[in-house]
Structure formats: C-alpha cells, structure tokens
C-alpha cells in the first residue's frame, strides 16, 4: 500500500503542475471553460487504484491549485465539481459494457461543469448563471474526448504502478 501512496503523491504533484501549465495556455475562454487536462491524472488513478485514491488526489489538487491561484470561492467550486464528477465516473466505470472511456470522461466533464454552475448560482443567488450551462456542456463533450484519448494513451504507456 505504501507503493500506492507514494505514487499518488507523485501523481498529485503532477496534476498540480499540469493545472498550472493549463492556466497559462493562450486559449480564448468563455469563463469557466478549461481543458481539464489534470483530470487525465485523476481518471488514470481511478482506473488503476480505485475511488478513494482518486478522490484523495483530486482533493489535494483542488486545494493546492485554489490556494495558489484563486482563493476560497474557487476552491468551493472546484471541490464540488470534482466530487460529483468523480462519483459519476466511478458509477459509469462499473457499466463498462455500455460506456467506453469517451463516455466516462464526457460524463465526468459535464457533471463537473453542471455542479460548478449549480454551486455558483446558489452562492451568487442568481438563476441567470445557468445561461453559461449550454456552452459549457457542449464544450465538455469536446474536452471529454480529448481527456479520454490522453487517458487511453497513458494507460497503455505508463506501467509499473
């Protein structure tokens, strides 16, 4: 088990670096649209080590990235998005007969965005925030596919953990 813990620590650090790198990419954005490349790591851990390890890595990543860059509100959005997204993905992972990596990752991205919008609309006391949701959901289909491809590659190439 210490081997798993060590690797999770490593992957947590890696996901933080990827998140940071992603923030500096010159991609024009509607507020909130992110590639979510760090989710590749989280999904990889989910596949190999299971729900609890993946949740730990995800929580660590949320805390550090929010503390480094945005602040407490961003932490709240991040955590809620990550939590629900991971739960949904874990559930879908059990239905491997009907869902491939594409579906799991798209569902994760969509749930993440939906949960963030939900929390944002509660915090800001405004139902107009949902106006962001259509674009975010459509974007999540694309980012989901990108992440799925990357996770598949990582799964095939990285061995020994």
């Amino acid at each position: 088990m210490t081997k798993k813990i060590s690797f999770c620590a490593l992957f947590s650090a890696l996901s933080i670096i990827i998140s940071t790198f992603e923030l500096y990419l010159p991609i024009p954005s509607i507020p909130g649209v992110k590639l979510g490349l760090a989710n590749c790591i989280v999904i990889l851990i989910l596949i190999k080590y299971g729900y609890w390890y993946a949740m730990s890595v995800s929580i660590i990543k949320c805390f550090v990235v929010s503390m480094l860059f945005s602040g407490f509100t961003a932490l709240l959005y991040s955590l809620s998005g990550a939590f629900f997204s991971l739960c949904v993905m874990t559930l879908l992972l059990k239905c491997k007969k009907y869902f491939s990596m594409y579906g799991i990752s798209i569902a994760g991205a969509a749930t993440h965005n939906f949960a963030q919008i939900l929390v944002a609309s509660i915090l800001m006391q405004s139902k107009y925030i949902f106006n962001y949701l259509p674009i975010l959901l459509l974007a999540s289909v694309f980012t989901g596919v990108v992440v799925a491809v990357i996770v598949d590659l990582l799964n095939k190439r990285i061995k020994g953990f």
Partner: protein
Amino acid sequence: MKIKIGDIVLIIFIVLFSVLLLLFLNGGISKKAIVEYNGEVIQTLDLSKNATYNYDFQYHNSVEVKDGKIFVTYSDCPNNACVKTGEINKAGQLICCLPNKLIIRIVDDKEKVDVVVR
C-alpha cells in the same frame, strides 16, 4: 478505443439538454429598465408606462418606451448602433450608445443585484 452505445446516448442527451436550455432560459420579459451614464445608474424606467425620454451628454439620444418595449428613436452619434439595435424587452438585454456613454439595461423585477462575474 471503440465507441459504445452508452457514449452515443450520453452525447445526444447532453446536446439535446443544451439546446433545450438555450431555448427556454431567457431572462424573461421584465418591466424595469435602468439607464446608466458612464457606468452609474442615473434613472430607472418603468416599461409599462408609454413615454419618451431624452438624454443629452456628448450626443443626443431620444428613447421611447412603448407597449413594454424600449428603443432608441433618434441619435446624432456617429455610428447609430443604438438606433440599429431596435427594441428590447427582456431582462438582461441592453442598448448602448457608447459615444454618448449611455447604457439602457433591462433588469429583472425581482432581483436587486446584477450578477458580478470575476
């Protein structure tokens, strides 16, 4: 990696859901408009009363409220984008005359604060 049936169902569901949201998630017709000059609210207008208003700063704007809609009837600003905007009546919509630093914004009757996005 092969695409499976669940993936397709999921994607169709998400696309349909987004389209439905786009169709049904309008601000809703509202009766209150605010007029801002240089970013500060100078007047609140009631869209249920037909009236005309005039604003003279750098340029002149003639604004008319009729049948719950508001629009700029005449302006002597160079680009006339405000006149070309036409009528608005839903919360969240706005007409701006940038040369005159004027923004007419329709606000939801029930909510007091406009959303601030950081």
